């Protein structure tokens, strides 16, 4: 526990680490669902940044970061639904070796 680490720095470092882990997963995994899992981790890291800056920022009563995070969660949910709907196609294309993407 380093004493010079203020709370906001800790949260920002955790968010950066989560973002890097999600990016590594999205770039290296072969399965499309696991690529989407990596993207979800990156979105969540961004949400953590927004909430942390809202908490320690100068005007928490203005609710800006909180609202941004809530809308970001809603958009991420929509993205996950469409992404998982699209991903049914992936493995089949690989197996048939057609390379057709709709």
């Amino acid at each position, binding site marked *: *526990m380093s004493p010079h*680490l*203020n*709370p*906001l*720095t*800790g*949260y*920002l*470092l*955790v968010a*950066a*680490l*989560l973002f*890097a*882990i*999600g*990016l*590594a997963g*999205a*770039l290296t*995994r*072969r*399965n499309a*669902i*696991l690529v*989407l*899992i990596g993207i*979800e*981790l990156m979105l*969540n890291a961004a*949400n*953590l940044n927004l*909430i*942390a800056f*809202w*908490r*320690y920022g*100068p005007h928490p*009563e203005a*609710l800006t970061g*909180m*609202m941004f995070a*809530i*809308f970001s*969660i*809603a*958009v991420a*949910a*929509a*993205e*996950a*639904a*469409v992404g*998982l*709907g699209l991903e*049914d*196609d992936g*493995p089949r294309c690989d197996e048939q070796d057609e390379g*057709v993407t709709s």
Partner: protein
Amino acid sequence: MSVVFYLIAGLTVAGALAAVLLKNTVHCALALTVAFAGLALMFLELDAQFAGFAQILIYIGAVAILVVFAILLTRGSETPKDGVFGAKPLFGLVTAAGIFAVLGWAVLHSAQALPGAGGSPTPAPTVTVMQIGNALMDRYVLPLEIVALLLTAALIGAVIVAMHEKAGAR
């Protein structure tokens, strides 16, 4: 930084690492749920109760379940024989490590300029759900309506994509 923060951060990062590294896809989805739960705990520790419970409801309750359904309903649960990682995993790892290095350097470099650097604890903001609801109906009503439209479009789009695939008569 309290011990609680380190425990929650360790749990979240461990869940995220497991979600990315494990071979079995179902195990990955379950580890992702652990990471989401850790993030919800972090939101609660940051005095953002509404966002924390929204995280639990939406991510653990909806997105994680959706991922598990997608894995089990397609053939994604079978571990492929030719490895779970792509052709060039080193490229992705180096990119991610580089980005983490840049982000970490930026955060640590600007640590003194960040709010709360003086060491005095910032008082917790008192935000009630009523205030959030009022703000959603007042200042953020246009984004709210746009999100409603987006969710409707996503619902219709997902249904159309799935129908197209089920017909299969391409």
